[in-house]
Each structure stands twice: as structure tokens, then as C-alpha cells.
């Protein structure tokens, strides 16, 4: 193998010949590996391949948390042998069975999501290196462990933009290997697809980490700042009297040029700049490290994309990548809104005006000669989008397309309804639109108004309406009053959790006295209503859990107010602390959530992080009470984020729609053989309680999700006080939302000190009467009964190799 490194050299004896080598394949990785040898302790798995984690960790997880397959349909339509009927787990013409095919289907979602984040990371890394150079330091705030996901996966600890390149190249290489396995005639075992999905999930958090740390370092985002500024949120915050430049997507690269142009031309108070999805979150982080007052606004989540367009308010729409609807151009065209595509991943078939003259492009767009344009030059994008918004504003006002439809138009639409019920059948949320239309015909629009908060704006209802009623517009028109009042506050994404916060909370989390970390992430495809995430967050914050959020979940948590008119972000501190609510940032900031759990193992637990995934994940699974909530999980990226959490031993509860991911990881709580670990002190087997019961599953309602998550924060290593606190919360929440005591509460009791203090006597009585445990009533002590022994110095692990006598 070559020992050359990147750079250039010349051969002196050959006149007039110069060989320049810009990049030697593999050299960057090789150099990084050489450098890693100098760094210190290294785990067994730096730069892992498809098989590396399989036997040592993934299969251990999948033995307890078995893949649950729920196919979307009974066919495979993947190749020209088919379509094949796979029902009842039959095999298709290629030999794959229903289990294998659905394993492949889920795996495909995970690698798609991983690719989205990795490609986003590559785009930002290259762009920012071009602007700022490879030597720009990774100043991310008060942390020594800057890149936990990169470090665990590759063994590297990059300190500059340039030093990230080996990790980026590595993720890209492994993604190619992973994608290849989908090809017909390769992997067919469901269990191996699940192992590969877990591996892909770990890579996803590397790609996300790269995406976020480079933008924090180069674009002056808040750096691990618990007091990141508050940002205005909601459609109601947009000033209709100003030109409105609306950005949609997940890549802040181009948006920064709009903000720069607005600042240079003193337009920040003359043009409204607001966005949807993660670009919106990230534009509010730009240049916010010094906490200047933010002027960019967050309109809302992906569910608001069509709603904001139909409102007529945007004068220009700029899209970049990822969670962007496919019908934005035709929808925008109806209301004379030019669309600019600023990223090669979404070009919408629009003419490319990257190299055209700026003034000519503005004229073309202004006149409506073209519905939009591709502009990949960010300098031009910044100028064109802002100038065009200013020019389109009076044009669109004069054309009467900046307001939602009239009352007369609404009545005409409602009267057309034939009550056929097709919209009810087509609606993914199962909204009772026919009932609401029936009442609207009678003049009562409150039922339509009530649909607004649940409606995800997909317009499947309109596609099936035989009367061609624009049902989404009907709902939005009927809801104009509540939309006008749709205003909230969200903290701009703070970035990483810094080391001192981990040191401060690590002991509480490991011992269980801080009951857990609740991570509220994900898309707005809620099965009940957006307010569900608010209720869940509030419940856990009031109980002193640490609540963190990202992306659309973070937005929706900020959209509701208490009786004093305050949002959760105003009521609770922004630190990673008991009872704190942190908005970590956009979707790619999810890497900092796994990073926080990993840092508990590395910083607080003193475990080697470098190239040591299994040990870190084992520590998290057994000691760190964390549970994710992706209440509206919808995208492929959500599947990769969740699966990345799973490989690190962090369970996640998803909304009911997410059953359509076709896979869950659920343990058999009745199979005692699954609930044993080793004690690392001597290698002996020790029984543990059945929690977490799942790594990935769904809940039907937010009321069900709350106690599920509280239970999922219980860990084998809890001490008495911690177990008592966690049982108190779980049992109280179960009683509040499900009713009565949980059936299996007694399985978590090791001795009387584990019991919730307020109910100790009653529970001891139940243990005696219902479970036959022996109680010494004079001392109020349990004499016999528990299957689980308590030993405060026990070191639970799933990895036999970590045991001293192994």
C-alpha cells in the first residue's frame, strides 16, 4: 500500500516534467490512521465495515430486541422476475422471502436517510472549505470532545475543517457498500439487513455531526449556548405589508448569502425573511453566536409548506434540499410566486440561470416568462432572491394574489360538496372532513377550523374530490382567525451539549436521580395533533426530565402557550439540566443528542470513545436513561436518525403513522432469558428488569406515549433512589393516562428502597398479597421475593469481553 500522503512533489532529474498529485485515493484515511496511533487509547473498531459491529454488538441487540416486520404490501415489485406474491412469508422468484424483502425495504429507507445527511455534510464541507480554508478551527464551544460520533466511528478527533475529510470520505465509501447490498441477488437474510441498517444508522450520525459542526464553526452559529436567542415563530408573525422571501429545505448554505445581501443593503427591516423546515431553524442560527437580535423568522414545519403557499403571502420561494414538496412550482405558479431552486438535488425541471445576467434573470421571473429558475451561484442567489421579493410584492398585490380567498368563494366551495366521503377515505390523518363540510353548509365553520391543527397539508383529499373542491384551501380559509394568531417562540438551535454540562448531569443520569433524557425530534406527520408534542414535553419538563429537541419537533413545541401566554421555551431554561428544555438545532443536530449520551460514557464514565462503538453503546443501554420521541416520524431521514439512536442503545417511540416504516424492534418482556446481562466485575450473569422493552416501536396516542417513555428510561444500573424516582414517575404517569397500576411494576423492585416513598406501605402489601413476597412488617423490609438482586457496585454489560474474568 502506498505510503505517499496528499500534496505535490517534482522529480529533479527529469527536465520539464512535473507531476502534480492533488489527491491520492485512500491517502487521507491512511494519514489519519497514522495520526490516530499517536493520539492514545483506541477501541477495536476504527473505520468499521459492513460486518464489523455484526457479531459483537448488533446481533446482541437484535437477540433481545427482535425485528418486528409489518409489510406495507404483500408483493415485491423490485425486479423483472416479479411482481411476486410474498404473502405468508412465501419466497419470490429470486429466492428472497417476505421477511428478507421487508428487511431490505426498511434498510433502504435507512440508507436513503443516511445519504441525505451525508450528502448535505459533503456539500457544506466543500463549500465552507472553499470559503474559509481547511485550517479553520472547529470552535464549537466549551468542549474537549468535539466530535463524539466521528471519534467513536473512525477513531479520529478532527480539530479543523480539513481534518474532517477522512471521516467524510469514509462515510461515502461505506454508503456505496451498503447501497450495493440492495441489488437483487445479494443479501437476503432479514437479520443481516437489520444489522446493516443499524450500521447505517451509526454512519448517519457521523454525517449529521459533520453537517452541523462545520456550519457552527464557519457560520458563527450559537456554540453550545444554553441561552441562544428566542426566535419568532408561526405564520401569524409574518408582516403582510412587507415583501416576504420564503425559504424551504434543509441546507443553509445559500440562505446565508440572502442574509448577507440584506445586511449589506440595510434591508433587514424592509423584507420579511422566513422559512420552513430545517433551513428555517438554521437561518435563525446564522451569526447568532454573539446573541444579536434575530430578524429571520420560522414559519413552521413541513406540514405548513402548502398552507403558506396557499395563503398567498410569499413573494418569492427559494428551495434547497431534502424535505421539500414536489408540487411547489405548480402551486406557486397559481399565485404568481416565482420559485428559485438553489441546490442541484432539486431542480424541478426549471431553466438554469446560474450563469445568466442577474438583471435579465430578474426580468424573466418578474414577467412570468418562466415560473422559476435554477441558480446555483450563491452570490447571485442572494441578490436575485431579495431584489425579486421586493419587486414581486407590489406586482402580486396589484394582481390580488396576496390574500387567501374571499368569504363568498369559501361558501361556494362548501356548497359544492356532495358528501361522497372520498376525502375521509383518502386522508392520511383520517380527518372527518365530510362532517366538517356538513356543518359548514349550515353556517358552522368551527368543525373546519378544528381540522387545521391536525391537517398535515398533503392535499390527498383534493386529489380524490370529484367536485374538484380545493379542500385544503377551504380548511385554511375557515381557520384564518386562528392562523393569524399562530405565533410562538423557539430558542435558536444551541448546538452541542458541552462537557461541563455532561460532568454536572452525568452522575444524576447514571444513578437515575435525574429521571431521564427525553429527545423530541422528527417530522410533523402527527397522528393526533401537533399539540401532542407540547403536552408530552410539558409533562416531562414539570417532572424534571431533561428535554431536548430538534427540527420540526422543536418548532411545534414552541407553538403553544400556557394560561399566562408563555411558551415552553420561555418557561424552562435552555440548559442540558434537570427540567431544562434545549433546542439543539435542525435535524442534523440530532447527532449532538446521541453525542450527549456518548459523552456521558466518555467524559463521565471514563470509557475510551475512539473506535469503540460497542462499549459506548453498551454503557448507554445499561446506564443512561434516555428515550427518543419522533411523534410524527415521516421521512427516510427519520428512520436513519432513529436507527442511529438504536445502535447506541437509545430507544425511541414513534407515532402511529410510523408503523409504515414496516419494522419495529421489540423485546419479549415475558421471556426471562432475554433479561440477563453480565456483571463486568466477575463475568457472572445477573438478571435485569424488562426495560427498555423496545428499541423502536409506535404508540397510538400521545397519552400512551408518555408512560411508555418514562418506563423506557429505567436502566439496570439505577441505584435505589434513582429507581424509586423513575418508578414514581412511570407509575404516576401510567395511572394518569392509562389508569391503575402497571401490570409489571413489581418486576422492577429489587428491595423496599426501590419503591416510591409515598406509596411504599401499599405496594409492600400488594407484593405480599398478589405476588407472595415475604415482608418483615416491623422493619418494613422485603425478606424474599425479588428475582433481581441489587448490588450498587455491579457493572452491567452485554459484552462478555469487558468482564474481568472473561
Amino acid at each position, binding site marked *: 500500500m502506498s505510503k505517499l500522503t496528499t500534496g505535490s512533489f517534482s522529480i529533479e532529474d527529469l527536465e520539464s516534467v512535473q507531476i502534480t498529485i492533488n489527491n491520492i485515493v485512500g491517502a487521507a484515511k491512511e494519514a489519519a490512521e497514522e495520526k490516530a496511533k499517536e493520539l492514545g487509547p483506541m477501541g477495536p473498531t476504527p473505520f468499521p465495515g459492513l460486518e464489523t459491529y455484526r457479531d459483537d454488538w448488533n446481533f446482541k441487540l437484535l437477540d433481545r430486541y427482535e425485528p418486528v416486520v409489518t*409489510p406495507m404490501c404483500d408483493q415485491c415489485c423490485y425486479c423483472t422476475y416479479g411482481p411476486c406474491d410474498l404473502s405468508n412469508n412465501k419466497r419470490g422468484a429470486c429466492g428472497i422471502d417476505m421477511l428478507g424483502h421487508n428487511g431490505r425495504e426498511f434498510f433502504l429507507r435507512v440508507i436513503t436517510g443516511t445519504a441525505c445527511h451525508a450528502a448535505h455534510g459533503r456539500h457544506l464541507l466543500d463549500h465552507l472549505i472553499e470559503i474559509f480554508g481547511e485550517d479553520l478551527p472547529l470552535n464549537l464551544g466549551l468542549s474537549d470532545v468535539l466530535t463524539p460520533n466521528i471519534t467513536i466511528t473512525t477513531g479520529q478527533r478532527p480539530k479543523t475543517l480539513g481534518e474532517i475529510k477522512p471521516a467524510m470520505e469514509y462515510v461515502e465509501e461505506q454508503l456505496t457498500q451498503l447501497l450495493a447490498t440492495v441489488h437483487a441477488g445479494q443479501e437476503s437474510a432479514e437479520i443481516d439487513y437489520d444489522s446493516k441498517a443499524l450500521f447505517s444508522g451509526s454512519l448517519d450520525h457521523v454525517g449529521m455531526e459533520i453537517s452541523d459542526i462545520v456550519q457552527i464553526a464557519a457560520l458563527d452559529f450559537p456554540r453550545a449556548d444554553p441561552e441562544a436567542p428566542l426566535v419568532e415563530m408561526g405564520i401569524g408573525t409574518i408582516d403582510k405589508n412587507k415583501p416576504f422571501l420564503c425559504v424551504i429545505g434543509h441546507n443553509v448554505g445559500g440562505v446565508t448569502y440572502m442574509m448577507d445581501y440584506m445586511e449589506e443593503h440595510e434591508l433587514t427591516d424592509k423584507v420579511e425573511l422566513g422559512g420552513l423546515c430545517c433551513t428555517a431553524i438554521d437561518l435563525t442560527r446564522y451569526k447568532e453566536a454573539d446573541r444579536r437580535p434575530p430578524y429571520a423568522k420560522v414559519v413552521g414545519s413541513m406540514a405548513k409548506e402548502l398552507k403558506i403557499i396557499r395563503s398567498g403571502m410569499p413573494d418569492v420561494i427559494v428551495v434547497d434540499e431534502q424535505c421539500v414538496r414536489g408540487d411547489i412550482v405548480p402551486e406557486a405558479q397559481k399565485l404568481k410566486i416565482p420559485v428559485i431552486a438553489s441546490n442541484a438535488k432539486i431542480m424541478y425541471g426549471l431553466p438554469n440561470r446560474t450563469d445568466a445576467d442577474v438583471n435579465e434573470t430578474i426580468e424573466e421571473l418578474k414577467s412570468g416568462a418562466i415560473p422559476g429558475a435554477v441558480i446555483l451561484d450563491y452570490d447571485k442567489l442572494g441578490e436575485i432572491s431579495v431584489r425579486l421579493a421586493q419587486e414581486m410584492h407590489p406586482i402580486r398585490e396589484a394582481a390580488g394574489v396576496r390574500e387567501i380567498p374571499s368569504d363568498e368563494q369559501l361558501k361556494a366551495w362548501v356548497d359544492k360538496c356532495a358528501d361522497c366521503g372520498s376525502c375521509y377515505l383518502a386522508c392520511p390523518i383520517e380527518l372527518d372532513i365530510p362532517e366538517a363540510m356538513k356543518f359548514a353548509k349550515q353556517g358552522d365553520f368551527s368543525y373546519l377550523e378544528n381540522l387545521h391543527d391536525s391537517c398535515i397539508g398533503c392535499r390527498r383529499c383534493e386529489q380524490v374530490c370529484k367536485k374538484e373542491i380545493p379542500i385544503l384551501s377551504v380548511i385554511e380559509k375557515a381557520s384564518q382567525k386562528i392562523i393569524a394568531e399562530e405565533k410562538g417562540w423557539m430558542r435558536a438551535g444551541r448546538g452541542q451539549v458541552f462537557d461541563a454540562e455532561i460532568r454536572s448531569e452525568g452522575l444524576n443520569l447514571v444513578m437515575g436521580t435525574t429521571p431521564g433524557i427525553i429527545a423530541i425530534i422528527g417530522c410533523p406527520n402527527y397522528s393526533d395533533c401537533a399539540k401532542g408534542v407540547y403536552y408530552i414535553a410539558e409533562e416531562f419538563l414539570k417532572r424534571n426530565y431533561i428535554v431536548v429537541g430538534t427540527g420540526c419537533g422543536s418548532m411545534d413545541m414552541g407553538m403553544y402557550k400556557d394560561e399566562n401566554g408563555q411558551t415552553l421555551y420561555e418557561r424552562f431554561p435552555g440548559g442540558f439540566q434537570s427540567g431544562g428544555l434545549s433546542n439543539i438545532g435542525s435535524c442534523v443536530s440530532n447527532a449532538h443528542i446521541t453525542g450527549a449520551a456518548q459523552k456521558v460514557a466518555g467524559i463521565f464514565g471514563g470509557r475510551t470513545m475512539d473506535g469503540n462503538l460497542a462499549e459506548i453503546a453498551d454503557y448507554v443501554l445499561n446506564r443512561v436513561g434516555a428515550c427518543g420521541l419522533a411523534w410524527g416520524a415521516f421521512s427516510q431521514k427519520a428512520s436513519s436518525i432513529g436507527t442511529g439512536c438504536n445502535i447506541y442503545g437509545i430507544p425511541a417511540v414513534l407515532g402511529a403513522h410510523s408503523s409504515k416504516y414496516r419494522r419495529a424492534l421489540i423485546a419479549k418482556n415475558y421471556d426471562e432469558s432475554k433479561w440477563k446481562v453480565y456483571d463486568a466485575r466477575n463475568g457472572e450473569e445477573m438478571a435485569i428488569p424488562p426495560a427498555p422493552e423496545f428499541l423502536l416501536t*409506535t404508540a*397510538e396516542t400521545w397519552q400512551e406515549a408518555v408512560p411508555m417513555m418514562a418506563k423506557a428510561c429505567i436502566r439496570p444500573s439505577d441505584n435505589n433512589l434513582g429507581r424509586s424516582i423513575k418508578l414514581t414517575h412511570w407509575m404516576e404517569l401510567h395511572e394518569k393516562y392509562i389508569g391503575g397500576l402497571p401490570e409489571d411494576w413489581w418486576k422492577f423492585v429489587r428491595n423496599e428502597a426501590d419503591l416510591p416513598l409515598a406509596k411504599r406501605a401499599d405496594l409492600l402489601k400488594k407484593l405480599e398479597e398478589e405476588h407472595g413476597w415475604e415482608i418483615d412488617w416491623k422493619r418494613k423490609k422485603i425478606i424474599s421475593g425479588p428475582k433481581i438482586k441489587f448490588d450498587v457496585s455491579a457493572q452491567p454489560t452485554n459484552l462478555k469481553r469487558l468482564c474481568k474474568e472473561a
Partner: protein
Amino acid sequence: MVDTTKNTKLFTSYGVTSSKAVNPDMVAKIISKAKRPLLVVGSGVLKPELLDRAVKIAQKANIPIAATGHSHIGFLDKAVDAKYINLHQLGFYLTDPNWPGLDGKGNYDTIILLEFKKYYINQVLSGTKNFSKVKAISIGRDYIQNATMSFGNISREDHYAALDELINAL
């Protein structure tokens, strides 16, 4: 008598109609013949009209209730054997012949399903359909293609009437 076998239009835009449309009297016969039946209810059952009917079905047929979602809270003061379990978890456990069931007496051969989001129950039943022998009978107001048998898509009023017919036939 309500014809619950009409209008079996799928709510999804894919898949096959593998579920057989069924009338209330047939459901009553299936329940009476089942060795280990289980009434599975979702959170939608908390509407008073449905809660009362679910209780009557459980009482007349003398079958236990698996209360999924947060539906269990509705059965606390009712004279029925209702236990909470998560639906996804239940769907998985039903595919395991060794599951001791909610009462420790073994797995179930027939489940009767009432008041779920149709996309959720349909997805969970795709697992039991393909990987178990359990018979799933949906008596909600929507046609569920992955059930073994199902009512068709019916109005709320017809649904209440059909449930009453079922109760009378038990």
C-alpha cells in the same frame, strides 16, 4: 338489519382485498366458536357510545379485553377483564406461539378489533396476517384489508346499529 358487507373500498391506494366482508351475526358465531378469543380495542373506543357497546360485547361473550393506546382508562370502573398493552407489542406477541397471553394461559386464536386508526391497525395486522395463524375480525366502521374478516366502510349510525346487532346475537 345493517348490511356491513357492502362498500369494501380500500382506504389505501395499494394492495389487495384479502379481507372477507362479514355481517354481525357471523361475527357472533365466530366468537362463540373461538377457543381463545380476545377483544382488542383502540383509544377511539373512549366515545361513550362505543365504550358501552365494547363493555357489552365483552360481558355477553365473556371475553377479555386488550385495551391499547390509552383506552384502558375507560374500563377501570366497568365489570370486564381489561388489561393494557401497546398495539404494536400485541401484534408482535400474537405471532409467537409461546406468548403466555395477558392472563398467563397462552396465546389467542381469534382477535376482535374495534376503534382504531385504520392505517395503524391495518399495518399491525399485516404482521399477524403474514406471520401467524391468528384470525383477526375487524368490527370498526372502516374496511380493514389486512384483517381476516371485516365490516365494510359504514356510517357512524350504521356502525352503532351493527354493534347492537352483534351484541344481541352473542
